[in-house]
């Protein structure tokens, strides 16, 4: 009976649950799903991590390549984050070029990496003016059950922590790049964490006097019917470095 209700009137179904203070999967409104993170699983990648948050599963792989730094920033390397939503993660995801959601998420990842200062781009440039690292960070979503932002950030940071880069030297006379066999870890300055919430506008709310109700760590079904979404990225000392809000009503 409840499954039919959820299929026909998903918004009503969820609102009825919220009014009692619990969600369809039994969590309280502020409870997050259990998270498990495992790093360094993919040997073909220079750094990797897999994150499972409830049913949402994402895997992040980092491949490092060498390139010439730009003339404007001769002592900085490059970071290219990208998120890929595969058709296997959800029946609604279609095959094809990255959708608007995927592109927006990729931009979000780039913003977080730069704003949080988790790594120093000068660390990625072993020989200024000549040789710099390009880190291609690819986050592949394998199973989409809501809240990709949190999972993607967690996977990205875990993969960066597992990244190992070799030493690079440049011989000026011979104009040759030589890469050492031994690898060392990259220095990560901080570990940002993302917390996302779905916002519901309830007309008559019995449990709270405010207009907006926040649901922590939403599932796919909750995200679909939510009015807005808000995310905060915080650093270890409690500083907020990125906030992100989408939706149809101002909060």
């Amino acid at each position, binding site marked *: 009976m409840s499954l039919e209700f959820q299929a026909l009137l998903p918004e009503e179904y969820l609102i009825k649950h919220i009014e009692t203070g619990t969600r369809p999967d039994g969590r309280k409104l502020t409870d997050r799903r259990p998270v498990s993170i495992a790093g360094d699983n993919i040997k*073909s990648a220079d750094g990797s991590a897999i994150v499972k948050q409830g049913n949402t599963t994402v895997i992040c792989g980092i491949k490092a390549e060498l390139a010439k730094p730009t003339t404007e920033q001769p002592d900085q390397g490059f970071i290219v984050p990208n998120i890929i939503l*595969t058709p296997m993660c959800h029946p609604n995801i279609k095959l094809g070029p990255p959708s608007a959601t995927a592109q927006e998420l990729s931009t979000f990842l780039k913003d977080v990496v730069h704003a949080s200062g988790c790594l120093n781009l000068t660390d990625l440039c072993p020989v200024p003016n000549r040789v710099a690292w390009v880190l291609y960070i690819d986050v592949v979503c*394998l199973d989409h059950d809501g809240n990709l932002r949190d999972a993607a950030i967690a996977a990205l940071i875990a993969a960066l922590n597992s990244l190992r880069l070799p030493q690079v030297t440049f011989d000026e006379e011979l104009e040759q790049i030589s890469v050492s066999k031994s690898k060392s870890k990259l220095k990560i300055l901080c570990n940002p964490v993302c917390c996302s919430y779905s916002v519901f506008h309830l007309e008559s709310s019995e449990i709270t006097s405010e207009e907006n109700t926040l649901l922590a760590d939403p599932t796919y079904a909750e995200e679909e019917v939510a009015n807005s979404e808000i995310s905060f990225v915080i650093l270890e000392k409690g500083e907020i470095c990125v906030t992100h809000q989408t939706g149809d009503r101002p909060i």
Partner: protein
Amino acid sequence: VLRMAGYELLSDQGLRLDGRKPDELRQIKTRLGVFGQADGSAYIEQGNTKVLAAVYGPHDMRESRLRPNAEKVVVNCQYSMAVFSTGERKRRPRGDKKSLEMSQHLKQTFEATIKTELYPRSQIDIFVEVLQADGGNYCACVNAATLALVDAGIPLKDYVTACTASLMLGTPLVDISNLEATTGGPELTLAAHPRSGQIVLMEMSHRFHIDHLPEVLDVALEGCKNIYTILDKAVRRHVSNRGASIGWDKE
């Protein structure tokens, strides 16, 4: 002993580069039911090759480019390699010729295996994602997809397992890794129904004399049968675990 670029593909003691005997398969690890959203899913590791498979279906036709068939179900396969799966970062994970060819081969393999007449005017989607590629990619995909189909409860005529074989100085080798494939000789890929011994797909690269074909074929078929034994055990273990958690044996 065959020496190529300093490697010994078959040593004096008859051992291969990774210490295996010529007729020994790589270590196989499997896991069924790994995703929440997909109807059926599986993960397989064959040596260093890691593949994920997800199955959606049977469901009504959603993609307009595939026309519904009144007699049989339409099998839609998509093969994709993660960008970090190979030594060099892949620029085009799907849509390139190799991926399309693999997708077609998988489609042919599963059209011959699934009982297609049971679901007319419907569609079954099979998605495979290669996380780490170390030789035998097609084989690992077929094996993972078989497990995912079993997990989804789709009726099959028989298991379909796949295995590669090669010939090195008169000795047939089974289940070749990437290194053996690129530096060694011919590679025969075989997909078969293990119980009946019927061949579903056979493909070969390079060349060797036709007199050698029966022994290489036998070795590959033997490999398929051994893989079947391993997969069957995994399925039975998975089903009994699931059954035990809901109390099947307590009736």
